[in-house]
């Protein structure tokens, strides 16, 4: 329920003893909680005046039930004052900076002005301890000052010099309090107000008197803040705070009794210290120099500071992060038949989650059928049901088999009835995968209720979520208000997030099989018969096929490029190089050997292969152009079209990869062998040169480092050469080559390692050097420097690794694992810091960037006011696209006219 009032501001201040007593509803004097009957002791820590936690009881202060009573504070009168641990540094500063006799600042007014600024305009710095010279006489009353020593956690002492000897004299909290009381007060004789002296230190004496940092009264938090839990065996288990408060009260009472009985000073001091210890650990149980208070089991108690601190503390755990209802989580799996903007939701989830709909005249009939259908919707064929009906008096009626008819009769439009209906096709929901590293980690999808138990999504939306289907789970949230649904549909939806604000290019696009499929379809020229063409374009809505490219024996044939052109917008003009382009020095354009010169004129693919560069996520040139020329909706349609087309086309030929795809002939194996032996000999030769001391070191490097670099180079080259040999043998008919060429997955390096040679394993960029005494493994001689002894794997994955190679491979592999583990935590922290530093920035209506407080950071966002998401890879205007579009258009028109 939204809060009706807005919090304007929050004031921070100290509680004065007076305030503590005023807000207290009960003075607590009993150290016990419950009596034998399980009833709280009056004036005990569980006093019914402090609020109630047991259902059924009523609070003695506000007379409300446990669910409504917020709880009330009590208080403990301490026998003697104790120091608040959090303020020891402040107390030390105050003791050192103010006179021990008259309580005035140990600086003349002129000196103060120098640091702080003039009295009526405190513009300068805040006074620090360093501004006051040590052990000088008070400039106001002339009293000599002594050195104040502070010992952690809460002991203060004063070093006075008597008869030339240094005497350390302990200051009790009462002494300190007496001194602090004299600071910054109105002089009763002269009537001069010295509070400005405290203001010079940044303190506000109206809100926080210095002596309040030393407690004489302790507030007792309400029981609602420290509820006791009842264990299975019926025993009560108290909260850590209650335990600590029990300790405080027990010592406090004993202290009082001893004081009243006139106990010797020594005992009083001991008790005082004990009381101080308990109050200290009550406030903070992780103070340096103070043993933490422990539970009977030995676990340190979680006291006030610990409740607030850290990731799961009140601030980060409970206030900045909140738990929600109307959410679901399950495993994800792919479904290429869904649109990118859809998500398949299992029926079981759709029936559990609901959307509130207010009953109106327009929707009453529909809602009545839903209520009548009830909470169970057995199959997809059954109509959508509802779980609850909320009456105008805000009472919820849970729909069950028994009451469906009666409730249906009850519903009236316009009176405030709300039906919480099931999810159904077309509802918008938020879909999320952790870690949520950027805003595309949460997007709005339209629901499609489905059989099965997993969330289904189009593989094309995997990149923004960074999802795969190896067991990933994702979360789904159902927005409950019209406002939230509108934002989900208009701002958060998938189609609004095709472009990444990181670099201004598409982040959603074809992956893996989409790219392999479209590559196989469009590469070079192929002809398809009519039934194949219709099969390919089965999912695309079109009226007529273009003129067939050729007719042979009365059979019509269409080219592969024609088929792809059908899904292109009719006025698209662009030229670019596909990702299989080798960047030849002179581009042969349309005659490209690899068919990598993509040319689209008026929506016709004239030449070139469609691959990652054209439709892939992160690159997608065509996709990007369509977004800029038309809009997001067109682009998301286009994604749906080409994903379906490519999936069909990959199914025509079939696509698989197996172990025999890595087979090479004997001739190639011999060549590879040759290369590797040559490299090995070359390494040995270089080692020999080095051992003879003949190696010329590179500038700034030792001979040994130079040798290592040379060896790495030689072996690296050897591996690449084996790869080349394998590549020559394996052509586009090999699936791995096709995937690497088209950019669908993997690289030629992967193939090299499978078919050719795995290559050098490295740790920290060097050959493997660690291991036994002077050698890496016991299989080698000491000080051996050869390639095999330091982690060069000359076999391929297919050929199989020998035992030493296997070891080296594991060493290299582990480095990768460690790397990932370290990196995630480091980059996570970096991101948290950056978000925290920048989160308050926004663009104002005048294009300036300001903090929410109003400070200007930039006068014009990004110096040109361009939104990186709407930009074309950083440029405010895609000049190339415009020129290409205008000139090509006109050129072809002229041609037609002629």
């Amino acid at each position, binding site marked *: 329920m939204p809060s*009706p009032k807005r919090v304007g501001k929050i004031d921070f201040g100290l509680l004065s003893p007076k305030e503590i007593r005023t807000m207290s509803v009960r003075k607590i004097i009993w150290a016990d909680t419950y009596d034998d009957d399980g009833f709280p002791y009056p004036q005990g820590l569980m006093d019914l005046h402090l609020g109630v936690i047991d259902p059924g009881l009523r609070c003695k202060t506000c007379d409300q039930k446990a669910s409504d009573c917020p709880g009330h504070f009590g208080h403990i009168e301490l026998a003697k004052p104790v120091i608040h641990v959090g303020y020891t540094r402040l107390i030390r500063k105050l003791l050192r900076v103010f006179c021990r006799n008259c309580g005035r600042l140990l600086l003349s007014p002129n000196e103060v002005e120098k640091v702080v600024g003039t009295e009526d305009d405190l513009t300068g710095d805040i006074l620090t301890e360093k501004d006051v010279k040590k052990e000088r006489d008070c400039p106001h009353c002339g009293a000599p000052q002594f050195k104040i020593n502070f010992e952690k956690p809460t002991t203060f002492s004063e070093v006075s010099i008597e008869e030339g000897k240094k005497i350390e004299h302990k200051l009790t909290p009462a002494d300190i309090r007496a001194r602090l009381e004299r600071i910054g007060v109105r002089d009763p004789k002269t009537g001069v107000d010295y509070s400005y002296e405290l203001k010079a230190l940044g303190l*506000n004496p109206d809100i926080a008197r210095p002596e309040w940092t030393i407690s004489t009264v302790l507030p007792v938090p309400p029981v609602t803040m420290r509820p006791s839990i009842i264990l299975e065996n019926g025993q009560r288990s108290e909260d850590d705070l209650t335990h600590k408060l029990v300790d405080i009260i027990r010592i406090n009472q004993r202290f009082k009794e001893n004081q009243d009985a006139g106990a010797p000073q020594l005992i009083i001091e001991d008790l005082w210290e004990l009381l101080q210890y308990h109050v200290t650990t009550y406030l903070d149980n992780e103070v340096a120099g103070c043993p933490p208070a422990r539970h009977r089991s030995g676990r340190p108690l979680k006291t006030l500071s610990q409740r607030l601190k850290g990731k799961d503390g009140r601030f980060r755990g409970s206030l900045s992060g909140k738990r929600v209802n109307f959410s679901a989580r399950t495993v994800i799996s792919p479904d290429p038949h869904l649109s990118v903007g859809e998500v398949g939701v299992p029926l079981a989830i759709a029936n559990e989650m609901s959307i509130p709909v207010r009953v109106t005249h327009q929707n009453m009939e529909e809602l009545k059928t839903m209520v009548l259908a009830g909470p169970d919707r057995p199959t997809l064929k059954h109509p959508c049901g509802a779980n609850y009906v909320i009456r105008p008096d805000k009472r919820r009626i849970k729909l069950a088999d028994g009451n469906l008819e009666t409730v249906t009769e009850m519903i009236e439009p316009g009176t405030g009835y709300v039906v919480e209906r099931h999810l159904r096709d077309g509802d918008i929901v938020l879909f999320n995968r952790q870690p949520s590293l950027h*805003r595309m980690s949460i997007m709005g999808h339209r629901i499609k209720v489905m059989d099965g138990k997993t969330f289904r999504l189009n593989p094309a939306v995997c990149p923004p979520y960074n999802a795969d289907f190896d067991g990933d789970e994702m979360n789904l949230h159902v927005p409950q208000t019209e406002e939230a649904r509108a934002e989900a549909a208009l701002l958060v939806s998938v189609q609004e997030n095709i472009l990444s604000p990181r670099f201004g290019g598409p982040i959603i696009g074809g992956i893996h099989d989409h790219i392999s499929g479209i590559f196989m379809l469009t590469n070079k020229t192929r002809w398809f018969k009519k039934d194949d063409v219709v099969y390919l374009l089965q999912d695309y809505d079109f009226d007529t096929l273009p003129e067939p490219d050729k007719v042979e024996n009365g059979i019509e044939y269409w080219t592969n490029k024609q088929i792809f052109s059908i899904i292109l917008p009719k006025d698209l003009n662009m030229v670019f190089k596909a990702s299989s382009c080798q960047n030849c020095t002179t581009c042969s354009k349309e005659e490209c050997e690899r068919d990598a010169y993509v040319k689209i004129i008026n929506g016709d693919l004239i030449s070139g292969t469609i691959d990652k560069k054209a439709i892939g996520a992160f690159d997608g040139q065509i996709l990007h152009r369509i977004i800029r020329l038309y809009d997001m909706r067109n682009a998301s349609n286009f994604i749906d079209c080409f994903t379906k087309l490519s999936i069909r086309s990959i199914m025509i030929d079939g696509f698989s990869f197996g172990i025999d795809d890595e087979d090479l002939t004997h001739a190639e194996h011999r060549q590879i062998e040759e290369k590797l032996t040559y490299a090995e000999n070359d390494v040995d030769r270089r080692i020999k040169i080095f051992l003879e001391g003949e190696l010329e070191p590179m500038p700034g490097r030792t001979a040994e480092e130079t040798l290592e670099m040379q060896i790495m180079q030689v072996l690296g080259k050897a591996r690449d050469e084996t790869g080349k040999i394998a590549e020559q043998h394996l052509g586009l008919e090999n699936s791995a080559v096709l995937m690497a060429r088209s950019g669908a997955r993997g690289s030629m390096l992967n193939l090299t390692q499978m078919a050719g040679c795995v290559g050098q394993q490295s740790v920290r960029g060097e050959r493997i050097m660690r291991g036994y005494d002077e050698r890496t493994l016991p299989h080698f001689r000491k000080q051996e420097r050869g390639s095999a002894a330091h982690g060069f794997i000359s076999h391929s994955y297919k050929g199989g690794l020998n035992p030493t190679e296997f070891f080296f491979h594991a060493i290299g592999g582990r480095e990768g694992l460690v790397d990932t583990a370290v990196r995630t935590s480091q980059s996570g922290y970096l991101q948290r810091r950056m978000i925290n530093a920048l989160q*308050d920035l926004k663009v104002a209506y005048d294009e300036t960037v300001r903090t929410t407080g109003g400070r200007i950071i930039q006068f014009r966002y990004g110096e040109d006011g361009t939104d990186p998401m709407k930009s074309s890879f950083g440029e405010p205007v895609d000049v190339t696209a415009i020129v290409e579009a205008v000139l090509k258009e006109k050129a072809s028109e002229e041609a037609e006219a002629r």
Partner: protein
Amino acid sequence: MKPEHLNAIQETQIPPKTKEQLIDKLEGKDYSDAQFDEILLRTNDEYQRTRIEPCEAVGVIAAQSIGEPGTQMTMRTFHYAGVAEINVTLGLPRLIEIMDARKEPSTPTMTVFLNDEYRGDRDKAREVSWQIEAAPLHEFGDITIDMENMQVIVHLNKAVCDKRKISLETIVETAPKKIKDKRHYRDFEDPPTSDIDSGELIFLPKDRESYQNLFHLAEHVRNVIVQGLDDIERVVVRKEGGEYILYTEGSNLKDVFEVEGVDTTRTRTNNISEIASVLGIEAARRAIINEALDTLKEQGILVDVRHLMLVADMMCMDGEVKQIGRHGIAGEKESVLSRAAFEVTVNHLLDAAVTNEVDELNGVTENVIVGQPIQLGTGDVKLIARQIKVPFSGEKKPNCDVDERPIGPDESKSQISNEERLAGEGNVVPA
């Protein structure tokens, strides 16, 4: 290109870079006036379309855009960027280093460009490099320990000294001084400056009894830097793009600027705080942007400059380079709750109490904590539509006005209070 076309381009309200691109694209192409007008119109249109929208939470987007690819970056600290001989920290550690605004990067390096006179000639470039590279005394001659007479003798090699353009006098003069000043070793007597031409220098320890002292002294004499700048351990000369460039290990911008032959307009260092102190905060801002962009680019990660600009502007806002984090921007925020929610929770709360801080609840975290809409994006728009009661035309019960309010139990209440709130704040409600 026709001059009137050029003029038309120059006069349109588009960024200079776009103008350049347009001219570049159209240069040498064949097109009609109508086509040109069409192109210019479309360019203008597109420029208007790509404006950033008000209320956009650009800070969060920038942080996400830099943070998200961080997971894809390599951890490996050392990489050889460009120059094989010089190690540079790259990848995620370098990015963290930049955002931390460290006083000294873990691998300080400089790229020293040379003046017209020097850049074309390898020998001249080498000359400059000698002025920069820290050269210890043992590179200029043989150093022997004379145990019999308890002394350290330096035989300066005149040929080397001539080659490296340093006179014997300077060596004789600087060596003892530097040993005292930079190496803080004083237990020796200044060698006599009389017979310089012989190229012999004799160092005598004050304590003639201890061999240990003698060896100590020898060590200092051997390693004292007599030529070049102390902070720059190594200089590599490379030819790039038709000119010789010096890459250094170690950085000292201020002193390098003093060296003759150095092009002070292009020379740079990767030590950002050094740039801030030598060239000023604007240069430091540029340096942050460039360094971060280079680091990301080297990893093959595409990030819009605007995000980095925003981060750099935030870091340099107060005239000094401030860290992203506890000891910088995040720690100096106005809001108590925001600081408490970030790090060192308890201390911030305690300090806020005694100094009577007031949290105005402007920022994001604060409003999340108290549970109300944040003032960014759609939450920042203070616009209220007056409800219009439209009579329902269909079936209608007597005396029943149709409620057109949005669905939800308490929506009506909050709207009224919204209005009150705005009225109370003195906001103008647009009609």
